[in-house]
């Protein structure tokens, strides 16, 4: 199978804006940005973004492909939708940031070991496996992403939270073996497989 990144570069050459418009969810809105900077000033984790959404939009138009797709900026989005409701042009900025992050992930350009990227992958796998989230496995999966030792260390550091939740009946240790799940797991798998086929048929990105 060809490298999706190499084929995208060949297809779009220097027209990164068109590449974004055709491949990123809600990417067709990028050209509407008028560079006012309200999004940059409204983001709760703004100071941690290497490039603010405002800057990312201009970088896309300026063809800064590698810088945009390899930054960890989009992964700082908490989905608070503050930028969306404040944007004077009403751009779906949160959704564009998710779309950019997902596109960078698909091309293999997203920063390796980016924790929110890891969490995103784990969350999707977790919630689609049985149809419902297994909170314990999700937490453990995230803690052990850096290996066994780091996982136990992280788990130990969070032991008071865990005991507190256990006592409050908001954590179930048996979820490690069997958690809440949907009855029609087969149907869920089949419909997601079909959604994937439809995406592939329409040359949209698949999961």
């Amino acid at each position, binding site marked *: 199978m060809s490298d999706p990144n190499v084929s995208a570069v060949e297809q779009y050459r220097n027209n990164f804006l068109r590449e974004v418009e055709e491949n990123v969810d809600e990417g067709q809105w990028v050209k509407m940005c008028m560079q006012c900077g309200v999004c940059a000033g409204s983001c*709760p*984790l703004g100071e*941690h973004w290497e490039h603010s959404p405002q800057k990312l939009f201009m970088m896309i138009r300026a063809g800064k492909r590698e810088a945009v797709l390899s930054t960890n900026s989009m992964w*700082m989005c*908490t*989905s*608070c*939708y*503050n930028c*969306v*409701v404040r944007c004077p042009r009403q751009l779906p900025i949160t959704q564009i940031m*998710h*779309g950019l*992050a*997902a596109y960078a*992930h698909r091309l293999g350009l*997203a920063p390796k070991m980016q*924790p*929110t*990227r*890891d*969490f*995103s992958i784990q*969350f*999707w*796998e977790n*919630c*689609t496996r049985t*149809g*419902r*989230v297994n*909170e314990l496995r999700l*937490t453990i999966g*995230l803690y052990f992403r850096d290996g066994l030792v780091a996982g136990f260390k992280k788990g130990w550091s969070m032991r*008071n*939270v865990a005991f*507190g*939740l256990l006592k*409050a*009946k*908001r*954590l*179930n240790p048996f979820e490690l073996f069997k958690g*809440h799940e*949907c009855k*029609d797991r087969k*149907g*869920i798998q089949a*419909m*997601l*497989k*079909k*959604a*994937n086929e*439809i995406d592939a048929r*329409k040359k*949209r*990105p*698949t*999961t």
Partner: protein
Amino acid sequence: MAKKEYAFYPGCSSQLKASASNYLVSVNAMCQTLDVKLTPIPDWNCCTASIAYAPSSELSRHVMNARNFALAETHLPGQDIVATCAACWLNARESKEKLDGSAQLLADANEALKEAGLKYQAKAEVRHMVEVLIEDFGYDELGKHVVKPLDGIKFAGYVGCQTNRPFGIDGESFENPKYLDKLVETVGGEAAAGYEQKVTCCGGALAFSEPEKSQKQIKDIVEAAYDHGADMIVTPCPLCQANVEVYQADINKRYGTKLNMPVTYYSQLMTVAYGGTAKQAGLDGHIIQPKKLQDIAVRVVNTKK
């Protein structure tokens, strides 16, 4: 008043022994008083929240939500879908808007749903529990059931993000929504006026993946509640509740603070004000005990009016 019936979408965190199980307990008690019948959508599934975007496609996420809509339409025809979780509400509603707005996307989603023997007919409406309270009952009606006004408790109404943006509740402003304060006053509590962290983000899912960055947010949210003399925080969102409550000890270690602020749900306030027990209000589900609310819950009053 006639019994109101809804197709209930409780969401993953509300399940037994999950992180917001006490939210569900209090919602059930509150709805009993209000004569609301919540029938869970049979075999409902996860909304995929706001964090599953990296490995999934737009269609696959919409299909997950459409499955719930189709199940509701099939088994609970004519009933509005009501979510109690902010993320469930937001994602379901976003999917619904997308699917209802595009014949192509709807056809694609239904082609996938067919594999599970389902079809979404674009009929079911998606609403949040607070919308039900405000729009289908109204503050006056909600206030009529109060038997124990929450006198002497000051609440910092922490609305957070997703029960506010991008859809909004009751057409209120995104910068300063009032509904939570109004609910507090409806049950006889005092709302901290001018609580400036009302719509600040707690970090959401990034409280797990970027704890240091999120805990700075949570610290601001709790400290402002202290600044306003609040006894506790109240919120409509299960993730806000968990994030703001459970990391306070961690924050204290990191910043040398002494945070110990209880974080409750609006439904707990209403259950207690409606005469429910501490257990019915899910007050046994806290790491930081909402002492003043517990005190009122155990107080015996003559509930006959």
